Structures are given as C-alpha cells and as structure tokens.
C-alpha cells in the first residue's frame, strides 16, 4: 500500500515518545524527549501550542474525552495536569522517580499514572480525582497500587473506570480491580517488555506491542488471548483501527532496530499482514489511528510526527473470504 504524501510535523527537537488524538480527532497531542509536549491541528499539521514546565524527557501524554485537560508524565519525576485551551498548569504531582505512563479515565474525572522502579523505590500506580482540589494540592492520591516485582511499562483504564490493565517489563499483563486495588488476573502471554497497550473503540478489546516481536489481541474484560501478529522486529506500538469495526479491523504495529522502521498493517482476525509503509529515519515509537479511521499518525525517534492519509487502495482492499 502506498500512502499519500504524509504531513510532517516538525516541532520537537528530540525523539517522539507518544502521540494521541483527542476524541474528535481534530487535535493531535505529542510528547517527546524534549521538555515541550505539543498540540497540533491534525488536519493541516499546524502547531497550536506547547505545554511548558517539564524539566526532563516527557514519556507519556493523554487527553480527556472532551479535550479540556491534558496529562503529561516525565523523567523529572513530575506528572502535570494542563488546561488544553490555555496551556496553564492545573496540577503538579511530585514523585520519587520518573513517570512512565499516564491516562485519563473514561469519565475524564480521574487520572492515573505509573512511576519507574529505581533506587530502591518500587513501581507504583497512583490515582487522583481531579475534582477534589485537596488531592491535587496536597499530592495525595486516593489510591496507590504497588507493582509487586516488575515495572509497569504501559497501562490503560478499562471496563468504564472499574479496572486497570497494566503491561510489565517482564511480559506480564495484569488486571486490577480499582474498587479494592487488588490484582484480579495476571497472565504471561508475552516474554519481554510490553511497550504499549491500546484499547479498541469500544474499549472491549486491547492490543499489546511487545519487545518479543509480537503484538497480541486480548479481551479486555477477561484477559483472554485472542490473536497474535508476528513480525521480525520488536514492536513499539500497536493500535486498532476504529473504522472497520464489524469485520476487518486493522492492527498497526511498528518495529524498531537496524533498518525496517516500518508501520505494518495486519488484518485483526486473519492475523495476516496486508500493507506497510515507511516514512521515518529511525524507529517509530508511537502510532495512533485518527478516530475516523481515515488516517493514522506516527511519532518517530527522528523527532518527526507524520500524519498519513490512507489512499483509496487501503479502503478498497479486502481479504477474499
């Protein structure tokens, strides 16, 4: 498949760590190893603004469902909550180690982020209610989960804010009950670190991207392993297309290391690769589908964010069944 010429977004000075669309898909948020998370117009690639205040590489970024707030986590051990429109800092959560993943809940009220396991500090996942000013001001989470032995490398809210799914650097996937803060299920389907977890449109399935060169599809409620997508490189990021939700959904995976910096498209059900594209001069660290499913964006180690519009071939292509 050949994509139309992508729009290159050059604004970051260092490699991109994560990209996310808002729910409508008109805005694209990116975090990078420089200190300025950025928001762009997805339609033309115009830079709308930056969220300045971090003092280290920003590892993760998220936006709530109505696009009013942005959450970022960085290597300076800070997790910050921003006002999207003004770029003002609303809250600053201080921690003992770098913030690896962060996310808004379905309702957008609660936020979650995880910290790295370093220098005797264990890896923790912390939960705040943004409506409670005291929690924000006093840096006091309403819940704290301590990951037993391995570091959380990716995480997402699930089951309408009742559960959390975390991927660990030893390949484990855990399901947490957020009422009690206890682990419900732990599975070892992967053998190496889980780089990314992304839910599908309905939040009932999720796809993982793993260093063991596979990407896998799971049932978000049961953690049942459904499909495996094999590549020959570690997978940095994976996403499920929102467009073909009835029969042909696509999983996009990106691989890194010596050459082969490609985004591959797999048929979600048949596990077969049907398309791929290049576009970065280095590993691709993050991939996201536009909510309308007609384009997808990639953020690479080369510092570029690229918005790729699919060509007609992509939409016409269908597996013979």
């Amino acid at each position, binding site marked *: 498949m050949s994509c139309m010429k992508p729009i290159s977004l050059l604004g970051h000075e260092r490699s991109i760590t994560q990209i996310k669309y808002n*729910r*409508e*898909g*008109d805005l694209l948020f990116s975090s990078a190893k420089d200190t300025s998370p950025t928001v762009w*117009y997805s*339609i*033309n690639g*115009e830079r709308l603004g930056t969220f300045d205040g971090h003092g280290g590489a920003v590892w993760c970024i998220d936006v709530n*469902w*109505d696009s009013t707030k942005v959450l970022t986590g960085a290597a300076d051990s800070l997790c910050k909550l921003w006002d999207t429109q003004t770029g003002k800092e609303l809250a600053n959560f201080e921690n003992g180690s770098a913030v690896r993943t962060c996310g808004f809940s*379905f*309702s*957008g009220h609660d936020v979650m982020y995880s910290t790295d396991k370093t220098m005797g500090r264990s890896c923790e996942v912390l939960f705040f209610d943004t409506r409670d000013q005291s929690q924000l001001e006093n840096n006091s989470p309403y819940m704290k989960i301590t990951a037993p032995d391995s570091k959380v490398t990716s995480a997402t809210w699930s089951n*309408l*804010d009742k559960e959390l799914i975390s991927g660990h650097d030893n390949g484990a996937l855990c399901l947490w009950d957020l009422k009690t803060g206890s682990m419900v299920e732990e599975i070892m389907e992967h053998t190496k670190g889980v780089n990314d977890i992304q839910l599908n*449109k*309905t939040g*009932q*399935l999720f796809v993982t991207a793993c260093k063991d060169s596979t990407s896998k599809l799971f*049932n978000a409620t049961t953690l049942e392993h*459904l499909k495996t997508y094999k590549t*020959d490189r570690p997978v940095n990021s994976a996403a499920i297309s*929102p467009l073909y939700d*009835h*029969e042909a959904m696509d999983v996009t995976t990106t691989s890194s290391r*010596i050459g082969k910096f490609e985004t591959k498209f797999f048929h979600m*059900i*048949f*596990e077969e690769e049907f398309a791929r594209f290049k576009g970065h001069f280095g590993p691709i660290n993050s991939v996201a589908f536009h*909510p*309308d499913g007609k384009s997808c964006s990639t953020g690479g180690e080369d510092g570029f964010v690229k918005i790729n519009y699919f060509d007609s071939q992509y939409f016409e292509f269908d*597996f*013979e*069944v």
Partner: protein
Amino acid sequence: MAEGEWEQAPVRKKHLDRNSEGTDDRPLENGMDEEEPNFSDAEDFIDDVTDDELLGDLLKQKPSEAVGIDSVVVVDNIPQVGQERVSKLKNVIRKIFSKYGEIITNFIQKKMEKLKANVLKVSYPFLYSYGDIPDDWQPPEKQSFVDHCNLRWRRNDRHLKNTPSEGVLVEARKRWTETFVRWSPLGSFLATMHQKGIALWGGEKFVQIKRFAHPGVQLIDFSPCERYMVSFSPVLGVNEEPLAIIVWDTRTGYKKRAFHCETACQWPIFKWSPDGKFFARLSSDLLSIYETPSCGLLEKKSLKIPGIKDFGWSPSENILAYWTPEAKDSPARVTLLEIPSRKELRVKNLFNVGDCKMHWQTQGDYLCVKVDRVTKSKKVQSCNFEIFRIREKLFPVDSVELKEVFCFQQSFIELNVFSILYRRNKEKKQANSVFWSPTGQFVILAGLRKEHFMATDVEWDPSGRYVVTGVSWWSHKVDNAFWVWNFQGKLLQKCAREKFCQLLWRPRPKSLLDKEQVKEIKKNMKVYTKQFELKDRQNLTKASKEQIEKRQKMLTDFQSLQEYLEETFKGLKEERLHLRGGVDTDRFDSNFEELEDEEEVEFFLGEEITEIDEFEYE
C-alpha cells in the same frame, strides 16, 4: 567330591588317589606328608582325570573345526566314467584342486544316474565335514519384507511446480537433525546428523530408511549412485579398530569398511567413480583405489605414483585423471588412467607448472586442465588450458594460452563451453564468487552481501530456474532469511525465518526421457505449455480455496465473540452516559451537530515567487 574343593586343589586329589587307592585316607596322608612322597602310579591305577580337567584353559584355545561349508568344494558335472577309470579321474581332479590348498578328503558320489558330484575338502582355512550339521537343522526363517516405500515416488510427479506462491511445508519435525542436513545426489534420501550417527529418510512421508551408528559424525558423502555413503567422525576409536571414516551400504545399513584417518585431508576424502563401482583416495605418493561391493583394494595394492597431487574421475566413464608436478629432470604430467585395467590412456608432459586444476565436462567428453605457468622465480606468469578430447582417437589435446585470468569456473553444461572470467570483471563489479546455474545458461557474479544485504549463501535450484540467497544463522545472528529469485534476477519472495541455518534444494532424479524424447517435447512445447498452465491455475485456485476456508472459519469464530461484545456494549450505554455527563460519545460523530463553534483552518498550499523586471514596466 564337592566342586568347590576340587577347584581349590586339583593336584591333591591325584596325590590322594595315588597313595590310598581311593579309600580311608586321611590319617595316612598326614603321616606320609613328612616323608619323601612316592610319585609313581600304582600299577592298577587308571587315570580318571580328563584332559578337560587338567588343562581346560589351554583346550579352550584349541582350534576347532569351523562350522560352515566354506571349506567344501563341490565339483559338479564331472565326466561319467567307467569303474576302471575312476582312480584316474580322481587324480586329475586332485591335481587341479590341490593348487588351492591341501585336500583333506574327497569322495565321488553317484547321486543320480547321470550326475556325479565330487566333494573335496580343502584344509585351508577351515576344517569341516558335512557331518557337523545338526540333525534338527532348520532353514532360516524368511524375514518379512520391509517396505521402505517408493524412494523414487517423485518421478511420478513430473510436473515442476510453476506457481510462485508461498512455499508449501512438506514436513517439519522437532529435533530432526542436531547439526545439519544433506540430500543424497539423486535426492532419494535426506540425511540428518546426530550425536550418535546418521539417519536416512526418504519416500513421500519421509520415513526413516536406515540408521548408521557413528558417534560424533561430522561429515558425510554419498557415492553418485547413492548405494554407498561415507561418513567421518573425529572421535578417536578405542583399540586398533578404525572408526574415523566408515563406508556404509545405504540399502542394507551395514558397515562395509572402516578406515583410519591418518592425516588431515580434504573432504570428501574418497572420490567415487560415476557408476559407484570404485572409489579412490589420495595419500602421499599413493593412489588407493577400492572396488565395491567388497571395499577391498583393487588388485590388493595401491598405485604408487610419486608426487601425485590431485586426481578426478570422469563423470561418465571409469577413467581417472591425475597430475604430478615437476621433479628434478622429469616434467609435470597429466595422466588419464583407465580403471580397473590401470591402462594409461594418455600422458601429457607439461613444463614450468605452478599448479594444475582439472575440470571434467559434465558429459565426460572433455577434460580441461588449467595450468598455471610459473617462471623460475615462482611468479605466476600465465595460464594454459589443456583440453583433452576424450571421445576422439588417441585423446588429442588442444592448448590455449591466456594471460591475466582472474577466476575460472567450470560451467556445468552439456555444451562444450567452458567459461573464463577475466580480471576486468573484478574491476567492474565487486564480484567475489561465481555461481553457474545447473543448466549452464546463466551465471551469477555474486557480489555476496550486496544485493541481498549480508547474504551468505547462494543456491541454484536443480532446474536452473530459481536461485536462493540466504543469510544463515551460522554466519549472522540477525536478519536470518532466504530470498527466492528467478533466473532473470527478479525477486520472487522473501522468507524471513528466525535462526534459519541451511537451505538445500533437493536434487531431482535423472530424467527418464532419452535425447529423442526430449527433442520431441521441445518440438511440441506449445501443446505442453497449455497443459501445464492449466495445471498451474488449478493448483493456484486449490491453494487459495484452502486459504479462504481457513479465513472463513476464523471469521465465524471471531464474529460470535464480536456479537457478544456488541450486546454487552449496548447494555452498558446508561453507565457510559452517566460517566460522561449525558453526552453520547458512542459514535465518533454522534455529537457533531452539537458543536457550534466554527474553526477556521488555513492550508499552506505552496509558494510562488515571481521576480518582476522593473524596466519592462517603465
């Protein structure tokens, strides 16, 4: 008397018998011990000690008559003679056969009226008579026939598959081999290597045909006819029994002969004659030729050829070519030798020889010897090609001199073409290897590691239509894969396989068609092309049909899950609305109409700069 006691003191018993005549002895014995014993036997003493008891250990070594009829010569159909001339006849026969050994017994028996058999017994190497056959001798039971399936089943499938679709997995087994695999020369067997030895597999289902125990085996080689296999193991054997190199019979699985490996040598150590009747090995100043099936030295001795450097068999006849370098006053020589007669067919003297390389043309019609000429200072000066015409009378030799030859590779052609690659090729392309296609029409100047990044192997398929380049795990630890190209250089497919080690095309069995039939087919090519294309298309649709069936199953399986998920999703609608303050976000565009704000977005389309010449407008 108890046996135990007997064993302890056999002599004492004799002693007792002697003195007391076997009765009431103990007190007496004690008294007599003090005196000089009387060693002579009593007069009425009968020695009841058998030889066995006395020198059983020695008797064990006594040669016994061999069991078998190896030493019996039966002479049939001797002339019928009258009674008076029988002794004369006997003498004649005796005279004839006494040449071969000492005759122990002979007798003439009148079996029937007409037939007379004369049975002779020859003393060397065995002694035997018919009487030793036990009365209840039974003929050996007939072994049931083990069907090793049709090793040549592929001949039935004469249609070379033309469809460049995905490779079809024929058979995969875990731990099938421990190191590497080999095909036999005609493709009948697949040899797998194990710590304990070699296993041969064949037939349609790759069943195990035979196993050969050879601990630590590292290298194997087959005779061109596949009847014999040679294996090498560096594991040192105990005792004097040679273990390093073993020649096996692939049909029976028996070890034919084992050899020591005295010196470091090149593999394959044995070169086989084209029909597999002889195999030869080179050692210093000696050329040892063995014959099959006995695996004994031909005429019981090796050929002494001082200074012999290299030799090679003709691919079609039992003719050997070898060369010897210059020594003192004698020139270097290339000799053609006929086996088993050992007749020198042709000797060619050569001078100023640095090195010789012998190449046989595939049909055995020509032998090309590449001779590197050197000056006195041992510098390679030029190169000669001596071409022996094997099919012509007296083996005439053509000589071609060439300068600056970079690389020479024999093309495996039926035509009379040898190829020579000049050095200028090297300058143009970074070619470091040359690979001829099996039919000789094409050649790859492989700049290995260029077109296919890091390629380590190049393999032509037996039909010469495809070529595979591979990156072996043995050389590189990443990006292991093999790529399939057609002969035109078009990349057909890339197959990435983690830890891919080795790829070998299976040799195809020789064509059953003779030259005339091949000609006939070539003539009617158009007719056949149509048939084959039809078959190809059928195969293609068959393959895709299977694929589609597989997909359909996956689809139906997944659809049931999706239906279930959809139901639960619908059921949770209230909860979702509640969490997002009553806003329906189920569809991406579900609340677009509620958005009232309009945003203006500018698109940068391009820039055009036109310089206006001011003076023109003045």
